[in-house]
């Protein structure tokens, strides 16, 4: 119901053309009450997504009920605030957790042919949205893991990390002696997308890998890139990575014929524009 005090915009039918917040109407020249509250709700959800802690117990229980082993670790950032302010600490494991992962790897015998303990390690981390990891990681893995299990890939127990950034995968994968590591991590929440999950993987993980050596599948959520489609892409890319023994800029999703440099950035933080995501 439009308030009698709102001057509506005649072009509300154009809202079908874009999800941008157009034709909001106005009070004088200012935002109508209803629109202000709608915006506030979206921002509140995004803020909550950043600050809510990952419920690793619940996530772990859910995974174990599916027959998956799990291990819960934490980065050197002690809380959400520290992780936001000190991304460097979110990229390193606490020393005792690093030892636990190394011990876990040492209980299995490395494959003699290549020396790796695991073909694929899996890391689920809160990143910038615990809501995303909590909500979509299990669903994505349900779609993703079976083909690799069928092929006899050795998959690590699922590592669940608190206060983790993307590059935490370097140390986790290295401790586990894994050939490949895939992280499912909460992305920086957008106003309409508090639950967006990112998937990053790197071949031969070890500390010091840079972002050009990683592959990323972004915006995984029911209203963005749906979970089954994301799983298909990742299955393709991970298989190609294992075959070609590399990851990063040289590994592309060749199933797409059009060559497009998707470039959701503006300024300063990368060669192109406006990207502050830096998870």
């Amino acid at each position, binding site marked *: 119901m439009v308030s009698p005090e709102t001057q509506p915009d005649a*072009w509300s039918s154009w809202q079908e053309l*874009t999800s*941008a917040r157009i034709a909001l109407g106005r009070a004088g020249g200012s935002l109508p009450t209803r629109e202000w509250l709608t915006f506030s709700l979206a921002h509140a959800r*995004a803020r909550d997504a950043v600050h809510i802690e990952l419920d690793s117990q619940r996530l772990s229980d859910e995974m174990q009920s599916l027959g998956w082993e799990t291990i819960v670790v934490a980065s050197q950032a002690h809380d959400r605030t520290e992780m936001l302010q000190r991304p460097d600490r979110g990229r390193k494991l606490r020393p005792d957790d690093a030892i636990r992962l190394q011990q876990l790897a040492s209980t299995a015998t490395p494959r003699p042919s290549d020396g790796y303990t695991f073909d694929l390690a899996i890391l689920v981390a809160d990143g910038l949205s615990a809501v995303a990891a909590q909500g979509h990681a299990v669903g994505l893995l349900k779609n993703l893991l079976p083909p690799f299990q069928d092929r006899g890939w050795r998959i690590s127990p699922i590592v669940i990390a608190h206060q983790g950034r993307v590059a935490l995968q370097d140390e986790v994968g290295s401790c586990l002696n894994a050939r490949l590591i895939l992280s499912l991590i909460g992305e920086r929440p*957008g106003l309409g997308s508090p639950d967006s999950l990112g998937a990053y993987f790197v071949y031969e993980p070890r500390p010091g890998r840079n972002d050009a050596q990683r592959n990323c599948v972004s915006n995984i959520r029911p209203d963005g890139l749906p979970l089954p489609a994301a799983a298909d892409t990742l299955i393709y890319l991970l298989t190609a990575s294992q075959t070609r023994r590399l990851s990063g800029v040289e590994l592309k999703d060749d199933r797409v014929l059009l060559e497009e440099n998707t470039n959701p950035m503006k300024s300063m*933080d990368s*060669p192109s524009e406006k990207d*502050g*995501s830096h998870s």
Partner: protein
Amino acid sequence: MRIWRSHLGSTTWVFEGLGELLAKATARRSGDELAGVAARSEEERVAARTALADVRLSDFLEESIIDPEIDEVSRLIIDAHDPAAFDLIRSLTVGEFREWLLKYETTPQVLASIAAGITPEMAAAVSKLMRNQDLVLVGSKCQVVTKFRNTIGLPGRLSVRLQPNHPTDDLRGIAASILDGLCYACGDAVIGINPATDNVPRTTELLKLLSDLIETHDIPTQSCVLAHVTTTMQVMEQRAPVDLVFQSIAGTEQANRSFGISLSILDEAWQMARELRRGTIGNNVMYFETGQGSCLSASAHHGIDQQTLEARAYAVARRYQPLLVNTVVGFIGPEYLFNGKQILRASLEDHFCGKLLGLPMGCDICYTNHADADQDDMDGLLSMLGMAGVNYIMGVPGADDIMLNYQSTSFHDSHYLRQTLKLRPAPEFERWLIDIGIMDESGRLAPVTLQHRLAQHLRLGISPA
């Protein structure tokens, strides 16, 4: 490298070189702490400021904070310095310079006459001794006017970049946002699209959408697709309708290299764009974006604080007499600017330093959802920048950029600022808005119907993408 000292009570504080002194004197921000260059205590910060106040402006000509041998931005700063323009302030210390800037006698004309004599490091240094109100007051005394198809930066005016981004560059989606913005009297700085896909065909397609709209309705404004400069150069070679060349720039050669640019690339692009002569009343053809933290993010900060490096990016910008320069202040995230207070301070510093150096500064007043900031913080910042005479701000539908996933200022926000501070659009654009029936003579928005010819443009003028 000179040693700088300040004696506070029984403690002597020592700072090695101007770089360390500037970093330690900077207001607290997370990026400098992340880089390990910030003051370790509040007292050390004030000690650094105390020492900085006694540094002579001419000392900055003696010591480059980044070695010119390895950094072309340092060489540019040295080569571009104008000794004649510097004469008036040559004898001043940084502390005296702050007072000189605040004096009644230091008028906009005086400030314009010394701009070429000020280096980025001098501007950054004095800004570190200034409170927010000083930054607003002196910023408001600096007037920088630029022209292409309209006049931007005149006193009493506020322009808006209309930013109609769409996650898949859908032409009708973008057009809907543009028309929405025009009906809210926005778009006089530029109608500027950040493309989701940075390539030649896409950029060309978007440029044609914009030039059709501008030509059909005789809109006294300019367009820009904010692709990488090398993409825009290819597009210009193919004779697509390029008004402005955009590029993100930073304050060190190494950071610029990580952006895929150098001064020689920018030189070439500037030359190409000027030769197109598409401006009707002026030929300021460049559009730059900057932002504190970009050098650190690129691991190219050389131990210098992020605000000083930001000011050095303005040395790059002013070489090209740009139409528009804006800092994208809160986009980079909380590891560089943690909260609303840090974002506010940074944006006022950036506006001040840019204007003092002679740039037509605007600001993308913005934040991300992982920063500790909200719309109230942006309102404070918007209001203070309005008082500081910012040339332009962003206009994003509902403040929500659905492609870049951050919050900037909305069309409604720009109207708030124009109302409260009695600011008007660029004069040519204002005339057009009144003539076409979007705004009345008093600056109030008029209701626009679907029969309006702009609305018809969307229905008839654009084929489905």
